[in-house]
């Protein structure tokens, strides 16, 4: 199955589900969501916290020269909500979930389970791919929010050691962040989640049925997801700049 065939079939399947929502495998999707979102909360929050701490230290070192360490909070809020939150969360999703999708589906392919589904009249795209892509996309907003909040907590902690009260920190954060900024970041996250899910499943469906095929598929899923996230984020940044948002 070529990549374009796969994308075409997935789109056709998604369109078909608009008219036959009962064909969606909700149970499978919930399980994939649990593995992607719930099981990923700890690592996403942990990385977010450390990122917040590191960023706060770096920025504070620079801003200290002007005696305005307090603006670390503004920088952190903007950086996390607009860029780092969705991008870093998506990269973690690619490593945890995209690779798992590729390995699961690749193993099923090697084990002829995909053939078995096909001859049972259950197209693998409907049965395996759709629930996973939807789960990956829906996992992004909660993961991103946890990541961003953990980052802010890390930043607040660093600033409080520099004598800036946490209350003041939060005042600056709420003053700089707009609802649009946060929703924009989350929407970007959903888009990245869709891409990670799609690439992971595609890599699995195309996995060679050799012993190292599954490993290669998982690697390809992560590498191409990260490339797609980087390129996608760049494109979105350019478009946002052109449209002035």
């Amino acid at each position, binding site marked *: 199955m070529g990549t374009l065939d796969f994308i075409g079939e997935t789109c056709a399947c998604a369109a078909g589900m608009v008219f036959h929502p009962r064909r969606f495998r909700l149970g499978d999707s919930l399980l994939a969501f649990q593995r992607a979102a719930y099981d990923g909360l700890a690592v996403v929050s942990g990385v977010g916290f450390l990122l917040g701490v590191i960023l706060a230290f770096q920025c504070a070192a620079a801003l200290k020269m002007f005696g305005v360490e307090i603006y670390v909070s503004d920088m952190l809020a903007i950086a996390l909500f607009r860029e780092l939150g969705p991008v870093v969360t998506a990269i973690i999703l690619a490593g945890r979930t995209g690779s798992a999708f590729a390995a699961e589906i690749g193993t099923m392919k090697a084990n002829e389970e995909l053939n*078995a589904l096909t001859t049972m*009249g259950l197209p693998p795209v409907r049965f395996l791919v759709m629930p996973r892509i939807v789960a990956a996309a829906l996992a992004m907003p909660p993961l991103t929010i946890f990541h961003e909040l953990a980052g802010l907590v890390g930043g607040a902690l660093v600033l409080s050691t520099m004598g800036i009260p946490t209350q003041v920190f939060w005042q600056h954060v709420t003053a700089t962040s707009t609802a649009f900024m946060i929703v924009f970041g989350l929407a970007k996250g959903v888009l990245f989640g869709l891409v990670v899910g799609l690439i992971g499943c595609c890599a699995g469906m195309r996995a060679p049925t050799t012993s190292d095929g599954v490993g290669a598929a998982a690697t390809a899923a992560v590498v191409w997801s990260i490339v797609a996230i980087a390129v996608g984020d760049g494109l979105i940044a350019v478009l946002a700049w052109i449209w002035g948002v």
Partner: protein
Amino acid sequence: MGGVTVAEGPIVSLSHVDAGYPGATILADVSFDIAPGEIFILLGGSGCGKSTILKHMIGLNPVLAGTLTVAGLEWTAATREGLCRRIGVMYQSGALFGSMTCLENVMLPLEEFTRLSRAERRERAMGLLRDVELADAANLMPSEISGGMCKRVAIARAMALDPEVVFLDEPSAGLDPITSSSLDDLILRLRAEKGMTFVVVSHELASIFKIADRAAMFDKSRRAMVALGVPAELRDSSDDPFVRRFFNRGESDGK
């Protein structure tokens, strides 16, 4: 469900079929018809293309040349969905869904294609597992049962929707003689009760003589079907040394 719709003409028909993969013809110019209710065996040495030709019959791979019909229909995008519900397939590897228990594997087709309640589906799936003598493995995962047991669960799954034609790829490989013989009885019983057609890849000579109505034999070196007929007659009166040797378990009979 499929049930016994007595089809006019052959249920599976191959006419001048070239079997293989794009760029690699494995078997050339194969023609035979399988009648409804027949138990038809595919024979031949390892790697001669039995699984390949089975994959054409179940619509996984398109034939390289010629015409292949199941229930009078060729495999196309338009006929696929309907045909899939009329066939049952057991793969050589079993191909159970590794994330589901044995019982859930058998229940899956019932869940997707019948309106039975959960309790009814469960009851029916348990009945199928009893048929293959695996009722006590119902709640085990495929990774927790042996290869031969996997195959029997896969047979139960293939039978779930009472298909018109069942394709079995080496069902008795890896089974002990007693289980293998009760599998033969199951096949004969289902044929008698429901009029199912069976297309079976098998190497078990005892089983072949017991259940087969007809058999087709393929030869790797000639890339062709070399015999078609009733197994006992092929054994006794085939002109082809390869065929005679096959039925004599590899000993040449000096003819």
